């Protein structure tokens, strides 16, 4: 079913919207959650929570890219759950990425920036990147994909990918500092 028709089902408060969403994007949402949590049962729960969030969000929101819309919700839910697991010393594949970003925290000592400014800063940073840079950056830090997977998909060696990601993290840090955005 086309995305627009699925969104219409949400607007009509037709519960089959969730069934159609699951058929089309269930595996996608679960893969995002699994990449972060490394646990099938928890990824499944995140996926189901995503549908609930989507149900409550539409209406009023009418997403133009339903897939990305759902993916962002899933990621947020999974990241929240990961943080709770981490507090219980339960490490997953995402732990490597969690530690990887330590070198990219902006050296700005002011009060933490508000969400709108942070959102704008992230978007302007992403728009400044080359297409390939943006792809590998988001595959790593949005989708939490392993280096081997990203390097294979983008035709790069793991070494080259590590160097590129290091440069991008450094550039993101610089971007936040220039805008005086603290975390």
């Amino acid at each position, binding site marked *: 079913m086309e995305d627009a028709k699925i969104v219409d089902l949400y607007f009509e408060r037709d519960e089959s919207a969730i069934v159609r969403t699951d058929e089309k994007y269930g595996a996608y949402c679960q893969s995002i959650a699994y990449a972060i949590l490394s646990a099938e049962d928890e990824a499944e729960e995140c996926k189901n929570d995503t549908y609930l969030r989507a149900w409550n969000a539409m*209406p009023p*929101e009418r*997403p133009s890219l339903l897939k*990305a819309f759902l993916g962002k919700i899933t990621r947020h839910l999974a990241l929240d759950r990961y943080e709770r697991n981490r507090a219980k010393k339960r490490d997953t594949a995402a732990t490597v990425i969690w530690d990887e970003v330590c070198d990219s925290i902006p050296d700005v000592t002011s009060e933490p920036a508000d*969400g709108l400014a942070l959102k704008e800063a992230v*978007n302007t940073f992403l728009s400044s990147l080359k297409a390939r840079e943006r792809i590998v950056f988001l595959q790593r830090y949005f989708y939490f994909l392993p280096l081997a997977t990203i390097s294979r998909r983008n035709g*790069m060696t793991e070494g080259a990918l590590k160097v590129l990601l290091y440069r991008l993290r450094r550039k993101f840090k610089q971007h936040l*500092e*220039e805008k005086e955005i603290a*975390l």
Partner: protein
Amino acid sequence: MKNKKWLSAIGDADEKYVAESDPAAPARRKVSWQKNTVIAAGFLLILTLLNVYLFAPIRQKAPDVSRYADSEYYGIIQKMNAYYYKPSPYKNNFERLWMKLGNMFGGAKAEDGMNNASGSDLSGSYEEITDNQTAGVTEGDRIKRSDRYIYYLDGEMLCVYTIAGEDSEQIARFDFSTVRELTNFSRYLEKWEMYLSADCKTVTVMAPYYSSTEREAKVAVLSLDVTDPYAIYVKNKTFVDGSYISSRLLSDGELLLMTHYQANELNYSDASTFVPQIGTGGQEAPLLAEDIVYPDILTGTYYTVLSKFDAAAHEYTDSMAFLSYSAEVYVSAEHIFTMRTYSDKTGDGNRITAKSMTDISVIAYRGDDFSYLGSLSVNGSVKDRYSLDEYEGVLRVVTTTSERTYEERAGEELVDDVVSSLISFDFIPTSANLYLFRLSDRTKIGEVIAFAPPGESVQSVRFDKNAAYVCTSLVLSDPVFFFDLSDPSAITYKDTGTIDGYSSSLVLIGNGFLLGIGYGSSFSSLKCEIYKESETGVVSVDKYEIDNCTFSEYYKSYYIDRENALFGIGVIEHGNRGRSDGYLVLHFDGYELREVDFLKVFGAEHLKRGCYVDGYFYAFGENSFAVHKIFD
């Protein structure tokens, strides 16, 4: 904890809303509120106060700032006040709380309002090797040269090389880490660029850095005496506020293009917290209100600041600021064009369609002072400064049009930060437009609407007199368009049709040929392709491709030598050819585009540079240098 914030930011999330997503939090508030209400019901006085609280109308106006009416910045204060004010969607607190409770029972997270709505003998004579966008307007770069020496910025070193073919060598270097004022700060080395004076005696380096003591981005303008390459010294150093965008070399100094951000603690009684500070050496003062241009509705509270700066005299000669404008600035021979993109919303009931629009302001800069001439608007957004061009009093602009459609309900808040954070990503490219404006009165005199296939966006643009060349793409396929602009009222164009890959840069190489540099069949391939106009369309003459490599998309890193038909580009190969890091040199003989050399130099692709002198090609990278003879 900051790792979590960093990762959440990538998903565009608001940290406080993530914390509020804990299901236990709203439930606790509900119980507490009901409990308080029951207790309050027992006390008439408290009940009266509660009623006042619940049913008194919520103030629907921005805070009163009339006490600042005497301030010369009153106009800006009013705009900022309006920008930061978010009207409540509720009539009173009762309605607000009722909606929150409804959302709790519906399982969604309650939010706090709709806050996301929105020549000397020693030095030699100067040789230009930077491919400036506008003839006569010199741009800074990491490489400059005289007829004797090549100067290259390698990290925080200025390296000087002799031009002597195979006997060339590095003869001197200057270490900027020895500049005391920069020692303890983050130096944004990748953004550093320099100029070589016409007499080749002075190198002026623009060195952006972040001062953690002043908690702001700054630029060190460092003038080095290079008269004797063996005895280079800093003869002038000035430190200016702001985040560096770019600069140009003028006959009477430098043109600085900067972004200024307001202070974290906004205080309308103190202009220094919300107006750019201009000056040096502790003599900074807020820019005059009359030199600030701002739109009716702000889309951000940052300024694009244009300044004429005399590095030798350590002083600004004039400045002008544009509030809510972007960092894309085009400088023609006579004018500066600043830009801001915003969304134009039209509604049919609750269904809103937002289209991207761009305002372009025109500033004359050749006199003693800047002179603001006015602005014009176009549909769509401008990719970069190469999408604009001034020729014979006419401004030509190419835009990508995009739009977003959504439902809007008065009185209902967006469900959560995850949803609202998607807004900025939801503009979908629809096509591309080309506009011509007569600059004298900024009247539109020609246009081509929706010339690109549906859903494509502009990837690269170049203009040459009465011709325009545009590459659009949808993922990894592109048409390249050739426009004839000689008659603005009857613009004609041809295109290649859909071909593999797309050009992220277009280079005019003379004799009617156009070189496209970009991606081939995948995002891990480099494709350089020569195009030419035919009677029926635009045809590919020849192309050169490397698979499994990464390459620089930064235009200034390319070496463009039209006279000798040589082109250089920094690449890193990941295949099995054993070449890895290097600078690729191509030659076009009118029929065939072929590789003539691959010089092994190291470092990031976009920081590598090269140049050709008298049969030899010189390449520069991170702590590396190579020279090969390529022509007899």
